[in-house]
């Protein structure tokens, strides 16, 4: 006898949060360690505040941090990392420098030692700086031929105006002008322990891991300076920004709306509203423009948090010939949720998804490490997830309707389209005023 109806869910298990051991070292670095013994590895995330650091210098610094110390070359460092099954890499955004790594858990001391060695003694050799800035310039050239990158740049310019967030990636010529001396100065001024957080997650004893971090990193000292960013400006709606990309076979459609930070009482509600709108596959917008109309492959809408502000970003790559119809449906779905309360079933489904994926995110070493590190960057700890889960659980249809009206109203959205302007401008102009700009 085959089963023809959906089985019920088993009993819901309470969200269990991993216990975190935390200590702030004498040098001002906060270290957190979490045991998850699923595989004999560990994950490392070091987050250092990096607001207002020069974009081009930051980018080259991330590519040359492991390029040499007094005692070792690039190749020496890479080989030493490999020998414990390890790897380290660095990245920067307008808020922070992030060093990420992992290794066999037997290599914890070695990896921390190598990290300490570059943090206290990276030399940024001329030869390596010259190689890496050229490679970075090449990658920027490639990025600038990617529609998604160009659309994001245009959207950031549009919504952030004069704010430092308006420009988040350097151009090739700026990167090619970076010299070793500037990197050493930036490192001395900003790659400092105070205000930073180190997260270690894996098959380790948390107390011992923190002790190992303290032994390795005690010599990393210096005066960090606190650098603040102004709050992000309110997003101004205004005309659609059309960026011309002649011959493009798709248009990159982007909309941005102001959002609230994780700690705001409306955040859980906005997360639910965003899910119902377009934040997961089973959302109104995805079911409409993909599963009903076939305009696009992977539309998504997400809440992005930065230290100075949060944003809802709506993104879809749509066939050139349906650019305006796709925008129409997007505005329609935003407007429908902002003006008519969602169904109870829609809320239940979105809530289950938010709670379930939270558990999935905590179920791997890398997931835990990433979440703990990101939260730390916003002054939060993983136990905040319990508060968040309780807010998700308590949300009502009326609550979601209220935040949708407040945050997801299409009248508040900034809209950017990157595409073949000669083909799409006229039909887009039937929906809203259009301003054409060069990329």
């Amino acid at each position: 006898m085959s089963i023809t109806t959906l089985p019920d869910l088993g009993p819901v298990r309470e969200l269990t949060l991993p216990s975190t051991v935390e200590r702030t070292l004498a040098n001002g670095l906060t270290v957190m360690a979490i045991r998850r013994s699923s595989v004999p590895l560990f994950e490392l995330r070091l987050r250092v505040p990096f607001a207002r650091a020069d974009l081009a210098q930051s980018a080259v610094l991330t590519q040359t941090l492991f390029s040499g110390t007094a005692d070792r070359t690039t190749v020496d460092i890479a080989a030493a990392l490999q020998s414990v099954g390890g790897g380290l890499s660095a990245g920067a955004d307008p808020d922070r420098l992030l060093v990420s790594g992992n290794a066999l858990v037997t290599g914890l001391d070695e990896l921390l030692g190598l990290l300490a060695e570059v943090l206290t003694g990276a030399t940024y050799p001329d030869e390596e700086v010259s190689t890496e800035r050229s490679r970075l310039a090449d990658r920027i050239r490639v990025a600038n031929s990617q529609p998604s990158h160009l659309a994001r740049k245009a959207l950031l310019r549009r919504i952030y105006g004069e704010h430092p967030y308006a420009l988040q990636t350097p151009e090739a010529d700026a990167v090619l002008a970076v010299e070793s001396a500037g990197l050493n100065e930036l490192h001395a001024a900003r790659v400092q322990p105070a205000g930073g957080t180190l997260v270690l997650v894996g098959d380790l004893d948390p107390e011992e891991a923190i002790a190992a971090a303290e032994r390795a990193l005690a010599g990393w000292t210096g005066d960090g300076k606190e650098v603040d960013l102004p709050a992000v400006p309110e997003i101004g709606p205004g005309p659609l920004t059309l960026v011309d990309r002649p011959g493009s076979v798709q248009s990159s459609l982007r909309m941005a709306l102001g959002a609230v930070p994780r700690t705001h009482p409306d955040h859980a509600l906005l997360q639910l509203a965003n899910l119902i709108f377009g934040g997961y596959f089973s959302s109104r917008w995805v079911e409409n423009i993909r599963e009903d109309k076939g305009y696009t492959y992977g539309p998504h809408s997400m809440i992005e948090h930065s230290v100075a502000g949060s944003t809802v970003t709506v993104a879809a790559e749509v066939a050139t010939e349906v650019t305006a119809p796709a925008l129409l449906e997007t505005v329609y779905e935003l407007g429908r949720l902002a003006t008519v309360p969602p169904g109870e079933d829609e809320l239940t489904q979105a809530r289950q998804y938010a709670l379930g994926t939270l558990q999935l995110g905590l179920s791997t070493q890398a997931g835990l490490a990433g979440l703990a590190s990101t939260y730390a960057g916003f002054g939060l700890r993983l136990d905040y997830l319990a508060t968040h889960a309780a807010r998700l659980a308590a949300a009502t249809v009326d609550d979601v309707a209220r935040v949708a009206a407040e945050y997801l109203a299409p009248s508040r959205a900034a809209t950017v389209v990157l595409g073949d302007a000669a083909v799409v401008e006229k039909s887009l102009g039937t929906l809203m005023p259009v301003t054409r700009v060069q990329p």
Partner: protein
Amino acid sequence: MLPVIRHPVERFTLPNGLRVVLTPDPSAPVVGVAVVYDVGIRSEPQGRTGFAHLFEHLMFQGSTNLEKLAHFRHVQGSGGTFNGSTHFDYTDYYESLPANALERALFLEADRMRGPRLTEENLRNQVDVVKEEIRVNVLNRPYGGFPWLKLPPVMFDTYPNAHDGYGSFEDLESATVDDAADFFDKYYAVDNAVLAVAGDFTVETARALVERHFSDVPARRAPQRPDFAEPDLTSERRESYVDRLAPLPAVASAWRVPNPITDLEGYLPFVVLAEVLTDGDASRLVERLVLRDRAVTSVGGYIGFMGEPFAVRDPTAMLLQAHLPPGGDVDKVLRTIDEENARIASDGLAPGELARTQARMATHLLRDTDSVLGRALQMAVLEVQRGAPELLAELPRLLSEVTEEQVTAAAATLVPERRATVEVIAEGGNN
């Protein structure tokens, strides 16, 4: 000593032919469910390029007891995530969920194993969606399909191995509901499938649930998988094409490797060699081409056109690919690669070079098994292709046992006469 991790593995076959792998792990309250069918790009019919992938989309469009959209809503409404993907030799469907949704996922997979709802409307809708997928990933971006779609037609001569696995728009638009029904009947037979479940459950409970939901899926026999073998190259092949969006020249070369399934011992040294050549700044080709000569801006090496060494059948290849600075000299890069391979073949490896490469490979392998879904997917494919899901736990050890002599012997086979190369002519100069 390399660490190992061993999750218990329980295998059984239902009377209808469904092979099942269960691997319990109570360390987090989540489960991963994977169903893998032993059919992929190589099996799609002539004149129907891209059909295996299009059909994968149709498996999400409703099934015996489920309307269109129901699958997505039930998985996500249970707190889970889902997807599917089409490869050269297999197609997978999978979910990650909180553990209390295990039975739902089994119901959903069993329901579509009985049969998808194939309608003209859904087919036309998904042809449109797939065309947008191809535009995003291939047509509207630089290096689209490089090299996984561009190199097989240079290296191979027969349709199954050489054709465009994403498909031409013409073929996709010609696809019919009858084609889809035939494809399902032929290749989505129960005995062509493996179900793997990893995560927080007991074997007894999971086995009972699997039997409950899958036992009465009607048995059908899949056809014998054809032999897709082709002879090795005996002279160099080289082609190029213009990419009007790409700002940098690029090149990829491939050499045939031993049969991954029937000659694992002969195959593993190539898996290690690819990492010796390209893993990190201390690897041979990065040190030489990127750091010393500055002849390339990036270089990578891997096995199989999709880079999954333990999820591909014969014939397959080891690939090396590089992006060059503007105006870079592709011939010189190829000559340097030959030189470095010959150097390994004649001089062997440096002290510690092999061991450190193997240590890093162990980390990558273990890390890929940390999520319950990663474990379920990999075990399902290993069961389908080798009848050996437990191989997943053995791989770090097996790779650590590859010797320097084996690696140098592998390097000696990477000669220009056996090489297929495709070069990207960059015509997308910007700034």
